[in-house]
């Protein structure tokens, strides 16, 4: 049934050809991540431009806020709140329904010198923990960043549970300690990071993680690729992906294809595919379809799983978003947890 709904909705998009995250906003505007976010690879605190653009998304976009999070000309604060109601149904188990504070963060960004900045992203709820903390030196088109930061790899989706973010292990819960060099020039954007490879946990060996992300960006589309190599005393992981984002028929398309090779006691190859389509139906209302595919071991047949989502995002006023939707997971019947269905309504507020 859900497949039919997706197909019908997709067909609707195709036939109507109406002209017309979150990475989809980057695809819509043609900007790089750093245009809207303080972090050069996206996520977390927004820049002044990002704040203003966020205002423009609202259905009542003319409404402005007198609130200012600037402590001085060179010290700024920011924050995000995400929470809501979630209902999960796993075959063979009782329904779970809960109100959740998914994430509440506070940011501090200080421009110490013209080229030197300091940034902290502290999660306050549901658990108090540091997400990222780094110092960045900017020189011409280059920058050098040191500290704990999100690893550059693929499309930086907000949804940590998306296959391409959860299974790769590179998401908003796995910032790592190390250094990163970035280079941005006209249409090119690249980052190379050397980190502990422990997802932020204490390092206990000399092995490291290397991650490289390269993208070519135009106003209408971008194409990129990432490679990641991470070795530990017990396992080695090689990952590779290609990704694309484009604005076509006033819809924003995000596509990422990943291959993961894990060498532990045995070696397995895994493949992931992610497609997301966004359409601004009317101002302040975005409809999002995501389709995900996971082949956990390409040498084993009939073990594949899928996850499809339909989400409506509403921006009633500046700096607030309401998201509601459902996700349909389908996997082999022997793994009930892969056949999880969810209905959710979330509130997202930021400054």
């Amino acid at each position: 049934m859900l497949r039919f709904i997706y197909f019908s909705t997709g067909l609707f998009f195709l036939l109507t050809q109406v002209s017309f995250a979150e990475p989809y906003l980057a695809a819509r505007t043609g900007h790089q991540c750093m245009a809207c976010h303080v972090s050069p690879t996206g996520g977390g605190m927004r820049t002044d431009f990002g704040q203003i653009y966020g205002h423009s998304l609202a259905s009542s976009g003319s409404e402005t806020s007198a609130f200012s999070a600037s402590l001085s000309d060179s010290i700024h604060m920011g924050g995000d709140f995400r929470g809501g109601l979630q209902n999960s149904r796993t075959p063979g188990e009782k329904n779970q329904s809960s109100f959740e504070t998914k994430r509440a963060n506070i940011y501090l960004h200080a421009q110490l010198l013209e080229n030197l900045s300091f940034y902290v992203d502290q999660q306050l709820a549901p658990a108090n923990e540091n997400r990222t903390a780094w110092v960045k030196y900017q020189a011409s088109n280059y920058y050098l960043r040191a500290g704990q930061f999100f690893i550059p790899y693929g499309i930086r989706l907000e949804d940590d549970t998306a296959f391409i973010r959860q299974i790769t292990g590179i998401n908003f819960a796995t910032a790592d300690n190390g250094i990163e060099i970035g280079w941005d020039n006209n249409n090119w954007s690249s980052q190379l990071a050397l980190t502990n490879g422990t997802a932020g946990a204490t390092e206990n060996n000399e092995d490291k993680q290397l991650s490289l992300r390269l993208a070519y960006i135009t106003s209408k589309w971008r194409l990129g690729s990432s490679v990641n190599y991470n070795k530990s005393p017990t396992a080695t992981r090689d990952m590779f992906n290609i990704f694309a984002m484009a604005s076509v028929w006033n819809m924003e398309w995000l596509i990422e294809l990943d291959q993961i090779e894990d060498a532990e006691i045995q070696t397995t190859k895994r493949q992931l595919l992610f497609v997301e389509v966004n359409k601004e139906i009317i101002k302040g209302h975005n409809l999002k379809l995501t389709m995900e595919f996971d082949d956990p071991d390409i040498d084993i047949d009939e073990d594949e799983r899928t996850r499809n989502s339909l989400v409506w995002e509403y921006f009633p006023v500046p700096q607030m978003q309401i998201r509601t939707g459902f996700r349909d997971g389908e996997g082999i019947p022997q793994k009930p947890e892969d056949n999880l269905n969810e209905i959710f309504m979330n509130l997202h507020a930021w400054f």
Partner: protein
Amino acid sequence: MKLTIKKIYTKLFLLPFFLLVACDAGTGEGLDQNGKPVNGNNNIPLSGQINSIQANIFTPSCATSGCHSGSAPAEGLLLTESNSFINLINVSSNEVPLLNRVEPGNVDDSYLIRKVEGTASVGLQMPRNRPALSAEKIQALRDWISNGALGPTLSSIQANIFNQRCISCHSGSNPPAGLNLEDGQSFSNLVNVQRLFNQPEIRVVASDANASFLIDKLENNNLGNSRGDQMPLNGPYLDQDTINVIRDWINAGALNN
């Protein structure tokens, strides 16, 4: 119909959409509860034994890719087969170092229980971003810990592996390589015993499966020359799940239990 460059370009972008709509989940035919081919040793019913907990809880719910598995496990905690035991028992937790992840015999002070029940003072309830474990699964964990958090026993390995696959050769008064794996003999022939010809390698190094020659022989690790062939000789060889049971027993101290 005239096809313009723009139309071709836009239609190309629609291909992945329709491709994914056509993608189906696997039927699971011939696979066990962890998506691996059925080999006779899987589909273990839920109980308070480590093998069952690994198959029914750790592997499907914790050792998923990007979580407690691979080269960057969350909080440095690997919960994959052959790693979970040594990473849990009497190992202090990263989040609350005063508490061990699993304190044998002490359920309420085992940090693992606090994490899956959502009562830990730090961090999120596990499994992260997934529904909580069922009451039955949490009870299995509680039973395992309250009963001493034991690893696989030698007697179960003897009955299910050595007796079935090894003693047809490794028995009697003159067994191959001087290794007798019969009931009552296997422990004294394996644990902390040098392999034949006084080679420096130890057949089973208690608490260290990776250093145990027995594991090299079963997994075909750097064999050949003076180290001989993979066992059982000429196959069929043990599947990795079965070898992992032996690994768990060794990592748990290779007790004569």
